[in-house]
């Protein structure tokens, strides 16, 4: 599924690298706030759902070729995180919903 379909259907805000949203393909999803767990279990092309806003999430996303990072509960990325995400071409999304609600909806949409 294309990322922009997810963005529209969930009504999430795109914070960085907007130009990539149309082209990025989402192959699956993973939800975790423990970076070592994401390194171990997330796969290339996955949408990653997390509450972490530290710039280290970007390096993990880059390492794992994550499709996009979705921040939950209206959490705002740190200024440093926004700047680095744009520079590294990583899509950062923001939602007011909780991880539980977002993952439920994504799963219903067919993201597994």
């Amino acid at each position, binding site marked *: 599924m294309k990322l922009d379909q997810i963005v529209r259907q969930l009504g999430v805000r795109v914070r960085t690298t907007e130009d990539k949203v149309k082209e990025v393909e989402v192959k699956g999803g993973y939800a975790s706030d423990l*970076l070592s767990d994401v390194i171990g279990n997330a796969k290339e092309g996955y949408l990653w759902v997390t509450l972490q806003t530290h*710039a*280290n999430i970007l*390096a*993990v996303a880059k*390492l794992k070729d994550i499709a996009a990072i979705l921040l939950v509960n209206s959490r705002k990325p740190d200024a440093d995180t926004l700047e680095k995400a744009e520079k590294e071409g990583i899509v950062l999304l923001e939602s007011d919903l909780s991880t539980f609600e977002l993952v439920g909806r994504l799963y219903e949409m067919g993201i597994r």
Partner: protein
Amino acid sequence: MDVLILEIDDDGVGMDEEMVRKAADPFVTSRTERDVGLGLALLAQAAEMANGKITIESKRGKGTHVKATFQYSHIDRKPLGNVGDTLITLICGNAEIDFTFYHKWPLREVRISTKEMKERLGRANLDYIDTAREVRRRLQ
């Protein structure tokens, strides 16, 4: 004193001033196999989460000193984890490096030195059995 202090000293290649400034940036690394360097970035994040910070001092050709502080009672301070297994992996995976480990609690202290272990056992190199036995006995 409500603090946990972790200090690592080495006599390795060291860093110049600019590198010291950037070393904790997760996108800064001198590795060539990947373009992220997470070690210091994750240590800094862990310290900051627990009301602490890291400081790095280094001199090219001399070595490096890394210090991380954590508020011991902070709810988000990560547990120390399995220090024994970490040490065993470090020692066995880097036979050419001598390690000295020192842990001081309020009422107890432990020191493990690979140089002393080699002398006492009369060996030039430590194998896995020697290392695991010594480390586990001392950290009990």
